[in-house]
């Protein structure tokens, strides 16, 4: 019975994927509330009002996350005039939470940094693997997802952003 239940769930899952117009599903990202590093609060839909948004999940102890951050901050700056933003959602637990702001300030990163210490947002957006990149268009539709970072992938990330901005 349990096996049938699992098969049913997988069946529903894959039928949904196959019936979608593209592999990204094109679903609308939920309007989640996010606490930012500066103490203020915003929502994802607020951030996508002016243009596309790249969401990335990271932690201070995640080396691939740190490698890609430099490029994401660059893209945040390069495409700022077109309304593009980067939101880095941090998953450091209380063990290392105190060092997040110190690290971001030290690198002089200008992108938005959200805090998600008990992975509530990561769970809802399937960002449990770090880094996970989610590119959302101005209307809030998910256009591209990517897990992990291999050096050189920054080119693909840049291409996806440019594709969306065209």
């Amino acid at each position: 019975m349990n096996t049938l239940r699992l098969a049913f769930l997988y069946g529903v899952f894959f039928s949904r994927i196959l019936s979608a117009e593209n592999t990204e599903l094109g679903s609308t990202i939920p309007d989640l509330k996010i606490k930012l590093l500066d103490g203020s609060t915003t929502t994802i839909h607020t951030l996508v009002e002016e243009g596309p948004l790249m969401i990335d999940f990271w932690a201070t102890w995640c080396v691939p996350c740190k490698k890609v951050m430099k490029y994401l901050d660059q893209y945040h700056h390069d495409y700022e005039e077109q309304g593009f933003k980067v939101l880095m959602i941090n998953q450091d637990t209380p063990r290392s939470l105190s060092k997040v702001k110190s690290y971001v300030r030290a690198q002089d990163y200008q992108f938005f940094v959200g805090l998600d210490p008990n992975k509530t947002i990561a769970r809802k957006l399937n960002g449990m693997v770090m880094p996970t990149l989610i590119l959302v268009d101005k209307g809030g539709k998910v256009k591209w997802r990517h897990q992990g970072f291999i050096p050189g992938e920054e080119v693909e990330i840049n291409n996806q952003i440019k594709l969306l901005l065209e």
Partner: protein
Amino acid sequence: MKKILLFFMACSLLMASDLDMNAAINASYGNSYDFYTFSENRLDMNFFYNDLQGWIQYEYSNPPDVGFPLNDIRKFRVEYMAENFLFKLGDIYEFWGRGLLLNQFDDQVTNFDNGTRGLYLEYNRGPLSLSHINGNSNMWGMGADLRVPFFNNIHSMTANRLHYDWNSLSFGLTHLQSNEEHDKMSGPSAKVNHKLKGIYGSWLAGNADLFVEYVDKVSTEKISLFGTIPNDSLKTGHGIYGNLNLYLGNWGLSTEYKRYAFDAAHGDLTANDYGNQIEYQQTPTLGKEHNSTLLGRLTHNYNFNDERGVQVELNGSLLGLSVSAQYAHLSRNENWQSVTSYDWEERAFDSYLPSSDNSALPYWENYQEISGYTLNDRLYFKLGRGTNKEILKTTRYLHDGTQMDRSINAFWAYDTTDTVLFGTEYQIIDSAEVFDTSFSDPYNVESKLWQQSKAFTIPMEVNYIFDNGYTFGIGFQYQERKKVNKSMGNSTGYSAGDSAWTMFNPDDYSETYNTTTTQLSNSDGSVDTQYNRLIYVSISKAPKWSFTITHDWTNAYDASTPIDPYYNPLEALIYGDLKYFTGDRDNIDPPSFIQNRWVSFELAYNVTSSQRLSVMYGSIQGGLFCSNGICRLIPPFNDGLKISYSASF
């Protein structure tokens, strides 16, 4: 309930046009030479429909890497948001303050889950927020088996929070009460009530921010089945945590202080030691979260019931490179001195800072790292340096004791006629002891025996990106580690028979000894220094694949030397052992050059941008593995295959 929920979600998914969803699959399979087999499949689905959100996690694991086999819905939650209200039903994970009272998370890697199955209600009005949780938690702890949990603690809990934001200031009042059925090592479980009250506050400014939290805890134990007898007050304690960050330009200084004293009784850190810190309290540790394998294995065994400490970390940029320097010093809350071999007395510190006295089991770590991109962003490098020193245990610790000798005059009368039974050792027929009441002058006694470990580690990594999209990377980690028993003083220990400290030289009390004995060994005997070396070489082609070969080597162990059970072709290939491929090598009796080494490769392939397949073959050394501050001992994985697939949509 679960079937209804499943049916509801599946039907909604198929029929509702304005329902948004996302999903993720994580599947992994492993099998090794020594029967380390696991098969885990998890499907996470999130549903969003206007103000309604749903999450369901289905797991089919038989058996999982760690935990119990499961073929059912593992987690679920439904959330509804109205104008001022947030309502959650199902598996609740909340995080208040910095976790001194409540920090819930589900870490499947270490099999730690302190979530509550119940309801959550939140009311928001302007800067004011009120939260309430009510439900049950079923928490499991590991026993002797490294993969199957043994101890089960069941909590029925209620928690409340009042949070208020006022400009750059925030305040919170928290409360948690739990009735716990605590699994002991043997016998019936203990019924314990925990009451926690907390307060926290934070202040955010342009160049500084501050956070302070205090929690008070009282636990009582129900010892009578009848309600007429009051419950025993079991343990009381408190915890304080403070964090001050300062920023200047591109530099940030993070300072932290902790003092956790949830158990003044200083228990034995087994399941029989209860009533102190509970699983909901996942507090800051004040240790560095390392991403280097060798430094990760040195993680300090944090004591959340009796430990204080400071941590300072400086982060900055220098010539476009990222620079970081960290220092931490932790210790118990009191110094201790041996009165006898089994009796200890505590001595309070003069300050609020941690102690450096060995009897307080101090721990020091410092780590420096420089990393960044150079050569037009083609070369990434990371170079670190870490040192750790820890007093692991003290067996005896008397450092400023005094004692006096007294002489005993004994008079014996012997029966010299009885030589049949006693030979030349004549039978005593009368005796008398006369104590000399004039004692000797008091003299100093010092007797110390403790175990300590000390390590020095250098992790480094370099990646170079070529024009054609290929990346070559190499990483190397080097570690020197000593683990010794140290003893010193002018006394070799306490004699229970004489009720006195035994002097090293009975004729000269000023004569001292100072010995160091290594606790590391291998198949050849004792080893003074453990050398660990880990090297990994990777080749990748973005955005499709990456291939990594890892070689881990050591020369000594804390416990008995493990036996490498099988010689595999990957090891033969790495060492260029032609005999293996020509069939001249006995695979069951591996050659000496492969002993104490673990070789593995991993191929990761991005099927699409959101689907990743990974294949690992080889051996992985077991040992301490830490994630999210939770550590567990993982068994070695010998000559096996691991396949994992992850996808998110």
